[in-house]
């Protein structure tokens, strides 16, 4: 007995000791930083080696890569700005774009960045497809001289400036032309770009990134010397202990508490991140519009926002587009919480409980589904389960981590799913996720695609294709509004809520943070726009 107890106590002591040592060592690593050098420390997750093809294909992966690789155009808090291209023109038929490059851009190995590198990058990405970028609309990329590039399109593409020119990373031709397998290219050459930061160190196991300033950055010398991104276990604690200068991975409630504490500044912006219910259209009844509408009526979205997300989100819009977006159209079909209406719709669709087991049946099969959710959405799942039980639909919740949920949805191995993703906002090209494959020539990341049979509508496809070619913004808005009406009516997905993002930071060290309008590149929501490191101010 004694021996066992001793073992137990010893084990406890070892664990406590290990924890406190870990805590202490955390405290110690920070003092070396931030004295002479201007080091900025932010929390991040491990997203892989930050080269174009090796970094995670999620939005934040793009962000880490964008610190190193520049694009022709970029965005700041007010919208589109020139970056590598100091100006550009477009032909009257909107099909030929001419970009005039800055003359002083240089790669960090000292070689100048020229039109040849731009042409090369477009061609390379076309030859080696990447989930961020689709270039199907491009006919040809030509270099007119060392600093002029002409891009000819096969057809008009409305979001070209943001989603193509503002998205394609310009890679040094002299390095990449010999790279045959970019997915395996993870040498120091793979992270030579023209951006404000260069990679000094990446710790693959710990997920720590150390970037150093590119002092020769053509856009301006960065105000920081070093940027350290590390995967902290507890961002709140790390921020409070001074181990971080800014923290993104905070819970909304934590951030509110920090704000109330007054020691840190907290800014809040649209997350460009949506949580939605996916239907697998291989299941016959999911193809009935009334069924999907009934589900939407049955969900008390306001209560989900209040209780499950504790106000860290805003309520989802039936037309899918974020209400803060300039493309938002509000007069679409609305679905106020109404279980009676939901039941009526199901009754009318012939889905009645024929065997009195409390679950409705359709074609002799009970309406019982597996509900795949990400492991951070168990509260939402619990509420959804209750709402649906109230109208006679049974769901069995299966929770998995984001990566697994993503791949199951992508492979179509699910029935009903609740998941969320970024790349939401910016150009309405994001509605491509509801268009058939043959019309989605746009640059919409495949991370949001779902496998199995998809919803499809010929009218939606046609309108979607038309608006992509519409260069008159007012006319395009009308078409996009029409698309939102169709989505609200048809509900190919149930938009539950949009996340807000927050950044809490020590304003006594570094400030100048802003939310990028519509997110960087293809709408990666962020405050970590690389320009912050150039335009911000060190205190």
């Amino acid at each position, binding site marked *: 007995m004694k021996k*066992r107890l001793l073992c137990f106590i010893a084990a406890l002591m070892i664990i406590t000791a290990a924890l406190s040592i870990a805590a202490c060592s955390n405290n110690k690593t920070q003092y070396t930083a931030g004295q002479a050098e201007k080091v900025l420390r932010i929390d991040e997750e491990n997203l892989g080696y930050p080269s174009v093809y090796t970094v995670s294909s999620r939005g934040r992966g793009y962000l880490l890569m964008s610190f190193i690789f520049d694009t022709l155009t970029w965005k700041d808090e007010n919208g589109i700005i020139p970056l590598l291209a100091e100006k550009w023109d477009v032909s009257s038929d909107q099909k030929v774009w001419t970009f005039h490059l800055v003359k002083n851009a240089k790669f960090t190995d000292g070689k100048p960045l020229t039109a040849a590198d731009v042409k090369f990058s477009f061609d390379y990405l076309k030859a080696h497809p990447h989930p961020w970028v689709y270039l199907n609309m491009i006919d040809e990329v030509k270099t007119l001289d060392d600093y002029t590039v002409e891009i000819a399109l096969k057809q008009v593409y409305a979001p070209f400036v943001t989603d193509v020119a503002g998205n394609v990373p310009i890679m040094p031709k002299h390095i990449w032309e010999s790279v045959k397998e970019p997915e395996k290219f993870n040498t120091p050459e793979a992270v030579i770009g023209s951006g404000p930061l260069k990679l000094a160190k990446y710790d693959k196991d710990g997920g720590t990134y150390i970037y150093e300033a590119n002092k020769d950055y053509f856009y301006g010398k960065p105000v920081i010397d070093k940027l350290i991104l590390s995967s902290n276990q507890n961002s*709140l604690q790390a921020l409070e202990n001074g181990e971080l200068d800014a923290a993104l991975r905070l819970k909304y409630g934590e951030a509110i508490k920090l704000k109330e504490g007054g020691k840190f500044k907290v800014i809040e912006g649209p997350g460009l991140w949506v949580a939605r219910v996916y239907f697998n259209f291989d299941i016959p009844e999911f193809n009935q519009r009334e069924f999907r509408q009934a589900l939407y009526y049955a969900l008390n979205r306001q209560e989900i926002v209040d209780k499950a997300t504790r106000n860290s989100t805003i309520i989802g819009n039936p037309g899918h587009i974020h209400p803060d977006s300039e493309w938002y159209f509000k007069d679409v079909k609305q679905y106020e919480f109404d279980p009676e209406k939901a039941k009526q719709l199901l009754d009318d669709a012939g889905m009645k409980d024929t065997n009195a087991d409390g679950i409705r049946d359709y074609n002799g099969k009970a309406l019982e589904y597996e509900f795949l959710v990400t492991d951070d959405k168990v509260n939402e799942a619990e509420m959804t389960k*209750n709402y649906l039980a109230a109208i006679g639909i049974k769901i069995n*919740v299966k929770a*998995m981590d984001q990566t697994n949920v993503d791949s199951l949805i992508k492979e179509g191995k699910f029935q009903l799913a609740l998941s969320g993703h970024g790349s939401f906002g910016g150009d309405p090209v994001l509605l491509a996720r509801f268009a058939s494959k043959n019309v989605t020539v746009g640059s919409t990341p495949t991370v949001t695609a779902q496998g199995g049979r998809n919803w499809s509508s010929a009218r939606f496809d046609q309108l979607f294709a038309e608006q992509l070619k519409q260069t008159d913004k007012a006319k395009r808005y009308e078409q996009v509004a029409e698309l939102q009406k169709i989505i609200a009516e048809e509900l190919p997905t149930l938009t539950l809520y949009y996340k807000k993002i927050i950044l809490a930071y020590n304003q006594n060290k570094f400030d100048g943070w802003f939310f990028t309008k519509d997110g960087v590149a293809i709408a990666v929501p962020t405050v970590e726009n690389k320009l912050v490191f150039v335009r911000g101010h060190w205190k």
Partner: protein
Amino acid sequence: MSKKIANKAAWAIVITMLSVGAFYPFISPYNAADFSFRPLMDPSTAHLLGTDEMGHDLLSMLLAGFRITLTIALAAALISTFIGTVLAVACAYYKNWVDTVIVKLTELFIIVPEIVVLLFFAVLAKPGVYNTILAIALFSWSKVARIIRAKSITAIEKEKIQYTLLLKGSIWHVLIKMWRELYPAVATMFIFQCSKAAVYESTLAFFGIGDPLAITWGRMIRTALNYEGIFTGGAYLWYLLPPIACVCIFVVALSVLAYDFERE
């Protein structure tokens, strides 16, 4: 003498816990799945342990946790101990290639990280409490088998068991005959598996195996730790501490019992 008291107290605790699990609907103040209360209430006479972030009554959840947590723990331990023991005895009984195959299989399950087994299982399994039990059993039996095999191989050489072999007794006869030899080790393994399962259950729910909505202590601990205000104010006292205390008491009580078996 004091050991006797510890043993009795442990039995008393385990039996009390099991009875709470069996009869909690009669003493639970509310339905544990009901989240219609105001969230994050402090303890009051209406809610002795207050409510959680969603508005569940915490006392009702704690009581409901007795049933599912203990059922999972006991059932998973029972299955893994049974499988492990039978395979171990098969090794001793059949020897030769049967032994080799089972030992290889056991080693495989021991070296393959549990997480791999889990992910593999998660893809195939429908979510639910049964699958939690099966999954825990799936990666626990090998440890039981390894320990019990060693015991069985010594035990089967004992003359009283060789007698059964001489009468051409089947593996079941041998198992029954060996039971008294194996019992302390089997009971110890059973109890260890129980405590492990009690702790593991909540983790599994987040691997897509169990039912993440099943009301268990593990789930309560997890949601409590996810609540950012848990340590500011006294919330941890009525939100986090009770389920942790329940798991600890259960595990410690079982360890006391396990120890007594082992000493036999």
